[in-house]
């Protein structure tokens, strides 16, 4: 029981034509095949958000998406955020506000925040909390993360 699947996918602006196994997860594809190890694996069951990426504008847990499913899709991972060596305002703010400790949750946290700010440039605290409610952080206590997202929103508004 097995068949190879050919997919075409755009990841961080680059087009890829790839052959994947049916049981390859999007997470495996990113980390193991493409070396995009910014996307993290922790729980593997959709609960922690470490593996969050943006697919066609919406966040998904890449540990629960088959690589075969992303045929024809646009994916953004944390590696796709900086442009020409410049960090994205969210990345800058996370550093400035001390919102990164061990850093394991950070890529997912930033992508959930980006998906929010792309649609809602001026979110309330409540909206920010909902947007990152699927991203667990065991280090920071969230306060600095909230602050970083607020400050990035302000920067992006200017």
């Amino acid at each position, binding site marked *: 029981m097995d068949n190879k699947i050919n997919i075409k996918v755009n990841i961080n602006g680059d087009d890829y034509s790839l052959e994947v196994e049916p049981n390859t997860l999007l997470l495996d594809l990113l980390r193991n095949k493409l070396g995009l190890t910014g996307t993290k694996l922790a729980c593997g069951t959709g609960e922690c958000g470490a593996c969050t990426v943006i697919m066609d504008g919406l966040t998904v847990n890449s540990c*629960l998406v*088959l690589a075969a499913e992303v045929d024809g899709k646009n994916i953004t991972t944390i590696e796709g955020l900086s442009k020409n060596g410049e960090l994205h305002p969210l990345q800058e703010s996370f550093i400035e506000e001390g919102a990164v400790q061990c850093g394991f949750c950070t890529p997912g946290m930033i992508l959930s925040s980006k998906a929010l700010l792309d649609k809602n440039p001026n979110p309330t605290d409540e909206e920010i909390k909902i947007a990152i409610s699927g991203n667990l952080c065991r280090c920071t206590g969230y306060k600095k993360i909230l602050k970083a997202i607020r400050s990035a929103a302000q920067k992006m508004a200017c």
Partner: protein
Amino acid sequence: MHTNTRILANKFEYLDPKSLSEALNILDEYQKKNIKILAGGTDLLVKMKTIELNIDYLLYIKEIAELNFINTSNGLSIGATIPFSHIIKEDKIKTEYTALYEAIQAIAAPAIRNMGTVAGNIGNASPAADTVPALIVFDAQVLIESKQSKRTLFLKDLFLGPGKTVLRNDELITRIEVPEVKPNTGSAFIKKSRVKADLAKINLAVAVQRKGQNCENCKIAFGSVAATVVRAENTEKLLEGKALTEELISKAAQGVADEIKPIDDIRSTAEYRIAMSREMLQDALSLAWARTYSEAKPNLKGGGE
């Protein structure tokens, strides 16, 4: 039980039809084999990682464009593959099917709501599924199609037990139909869980229709208190034709525990569930009753994606 959530060890063949007729043909041809329908994967892929399922074929239905819709012109018609986060963008869900709106908001977190579907929530047949009690109090029906047949069932008649439905191997839920809400109807959904994103220890949806000062019609559905989602029909009858005063609501709450059969499991105990069912019924009924007055429009928070 072998548990390795880091990889998907199961080997299977992946089938991704682009049309409904193609999907139904595949189900017809493979019905005697180990085939499973895959939508958002938020239940199925977790299960495939954590329990031995013996799946040889996965039928991925999200490429079927004709199932990815929501239509609100006459009641609600929800296609099988539209994700939760798109459904709750419809204002009508918030204003008229408030319990369903609240149930969807109570599911996990944005990424899961971007992936998961109502048909998957139903197909998984968990007694804790959040949208099921909410859909049942609005008399939802499910359209089930196969190559050979087409049938419509009331959602409440679909479940046989945890993980078990009346669906045949060659059948697919294609859409969920919910009738138009009657005037002066109010509804509410309440869930108790360990943390917000968890599955329910107990959940409850209520819809009441008011005529003048009295309750004309009332529907109450509890989840996670029996092998399937259950209606509290005796309590519904007790309330119908009467004004929902505080005294009556509290009387109903005392009786409702007799209508549920909770068990002890990993999420909670029977004792907790019985005690909570009373409190939750009072809260949900009061809220739904207040919402039958149009001036008491629900104050609901935005969803986020």
